[in-house]
């Protein structure tokens, strides 16, 4: 398991955080996603044998946001 934090500069409200947290259900290998609109960041805990950072970034992009590795 690995825990990574990404900056998400294009969140516009707390609903965006909820949208990003739905990655918990959308991506295999994700244990937990915590997104904060206040801090414009997302912390994701995932199994790095099943998922790569690039796949996480791509999944975030698919949700309509930009993930920048912190």
């Amino acid at each position, binding site marked *: 398991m690995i825990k990574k934090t990404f900056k998400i500069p294009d969140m*516009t*409200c*707390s*609903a965006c*955080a909820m949208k990003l947290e*739905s990655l*918990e259900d959308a991506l295999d290998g994700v244990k937990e996603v915590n997104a904060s*609109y206040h801090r*414009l960041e997302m912390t994701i805990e995932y199994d790095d044998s099943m998922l790569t950072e690039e796949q996480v970034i791509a999944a975030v992009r698919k949700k309509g946001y930009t993930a920048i590795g912190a």
Partner: protein
Amino acid sequence: MTSKQKPAVDPVIIVMLGIVFLAIAFALLVFKPNDQSLGFDAGSGAWNQLLVAFVTGITTGGLSCLAVQGGLLASSLAHQIEQDYVEQSAHHKRGNRLPRSNSAFPIMLFLISKLGAYTLLGALLGWLGSYLTLSPMTRAMVMILVGVFMIGNALRMFNVHPIFRYFSIEPPKFITRYIRRTAKGTDTFTPLFLGALTVFIPCGVTQAMMATALGTGSAAMGAALMFAFVLGTSPVFFIIAYLTTELGARLEKFFMRFVAVVLLILGFVTLDGGLNVLGSPLSFQNLTRSLIPSNSTPAPVSESTQPESDSDTIVLNVNNDGYFPRTLNAPAGTAVTLNLVTNQTYSCARDFVIPALNYYELLPDTGTVQVGIPAQKAGSQLFFTCSMGMYTGVIVFQ
């Protein structure tokens, strides 16, 4: 269902137009001025407040709510709409067509449930507010806080500074996770349940309205206020929820700007009302009073229905549309009697407040109430207002 799979006939549009007309008709019926059927203090001020709540809902609330709750609704409906479409396609191949009623039904369930839940929440907030609303000063503080909250949210939407992001309340993680996972269901219960759960994820405008409900200090008024607001949001919510699937997020930014502008205006109006109730000379109405000519400037008004004025007695007419004259002149250095005259007055102007004297009185709808004003220095001013800060005036001592 994707936008490419758009069905030829769309009963949803008919249903949503029906809902718009029903909501407007219902609002006109329910929010008819001077109708006192609900039992609470149904002055036109209260009805105006409900009308403002409804208009706020129909103009900005629906869009703002949609930004927060729309995704959940869409995800809860997605499977059902898709399933409905598949069924319709199958029937279409066989040469007959099914009406697309299933897609509108869960949205309606969602909105009805949301309406009920927020009405109950409004009653709870109003009831809580009855313990908090100890005086007009408390109400003024609540109004100022609500105003600041609304302005902060508007500035957040305009992305003025990162600090304004803290005006957006983030629901606890366990709630959002629970709601998200519930939203995956496709049965009839799900939209009902989800609609009720939206009370835990209110948008900025809804939060402001909840704070206003708290400020009413009445369970009935709080419930009515939230009912009016959510009723207003419903048709917009319904239309946009549907159109969003068709138009995507192309118009979202435009809508959000519009919401922010309206929220900013409402925020300043609320803040100004709070300042009026505090008796602050810095409120917009008090600052601009000298610029706007006041009608019937001479203080005493003699009519057969009201007492005669003398040099130590001043008369203020308390009408449904405010106080007349709005600027009263009174002698300085001597105690003055202020006669407040009402004549079939049902508006919030009856809730008369002189903040500097800590005087508050709910005037009779028809009659005269005398207020003893102690001697004031020459050149001093006493501001008076209704308890909502809508109608104001000033006594100038010379």
